[in-house]
């Protein structure tokens, strides 16, 4: 996985540390906090749940545990891209640290690790969509995975 030019910029102490994993979901690029990302794997076999809303693709097994898999593109209301097969599952932790849960996010691709300065994030809803930030010439959706795991 590459580190972007943003991530490689010097802050006087050397290279800036990557803070987010950039993934493609439909026509959107989304930044997931690196500390919440457990693994990126080829799309897992998902068993759809009858009556579930479109965001929830279903359940999969990962590491011997049951894991819900959400469609990231639908979560962020992204228009479908040219190849909407969602061949990648990003396994993440969601919810508060003391009660975190494992979750799969189906995406088109995992792009690179980038540095997203907190001060560059603007215009979010304060919840799952923390805001938007410019990264390497593109506006990306910066996501708050802790909010996704909260009940209600």
């Amino acid at each position: 996985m590459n580190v972007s030019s943003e991530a490689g910029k010097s802050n006087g102490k050397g290279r800036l540390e990557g803070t987010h994993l950039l993934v493609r979901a439909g026509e959107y690029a989304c930044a997931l906090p690196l500390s919440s990302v457990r693994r990126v794997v080829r799309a897992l076999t998902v068993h759809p749940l009858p009556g579930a809303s479109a965001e929830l693709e279903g359940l999969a097994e990962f590491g011997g545990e049951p894991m819900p898999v959400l469609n990231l593109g639908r979560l962020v209301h992204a228009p479908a891209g040219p190849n909407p097969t969602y061949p990648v599952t990003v396994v993440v932790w969601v919810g508060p640290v003391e009660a975190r849960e494992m979750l799969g996010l189906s995406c088109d691709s995992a792009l690179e690790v980038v540095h997203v300065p907190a001060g560059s994030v603007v215009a979010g809803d304060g919840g799952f969509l923390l805001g938007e930030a410019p990264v390497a010439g593109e506006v990306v959706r910066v996501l708050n995975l802790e909010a996704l795991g909260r009940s209600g």
Partner: protein
Amino acid sequence: MSVPQARGFLLLRRGGNLWGIANAAVDGLGRQGVDYRITIGGGGGDLRADEILGVVEELRVWPLAPVVSRFWPEPAAGLAVHGHEPVVMVDPGRLPAALSAEVATEGSGEGDRDDE
């Protein structure tokens, strides 16, 4: 969570999914047409299954994550894994519509003949 502490879980398949229910909650099991009918004790109602996989003695049950409840309105007692496949644990006190015998009866037509 209302999964009883008694050991043993009945595993069944319906609509391609794997479901489990505490064996202690099951009162009866029989064929009905092409389906299986599982009677839940205490007047809990009946379930329908396409296939009965059998009873497993041990099953680790994880609580249903809030993120699942947010996008899936059905009641469940938790989640488990059997043979690398996720299992939805049925709450005997709140049966999911996907397993409901009533829903199946309304839509199943001639195949619904009771063979018992």
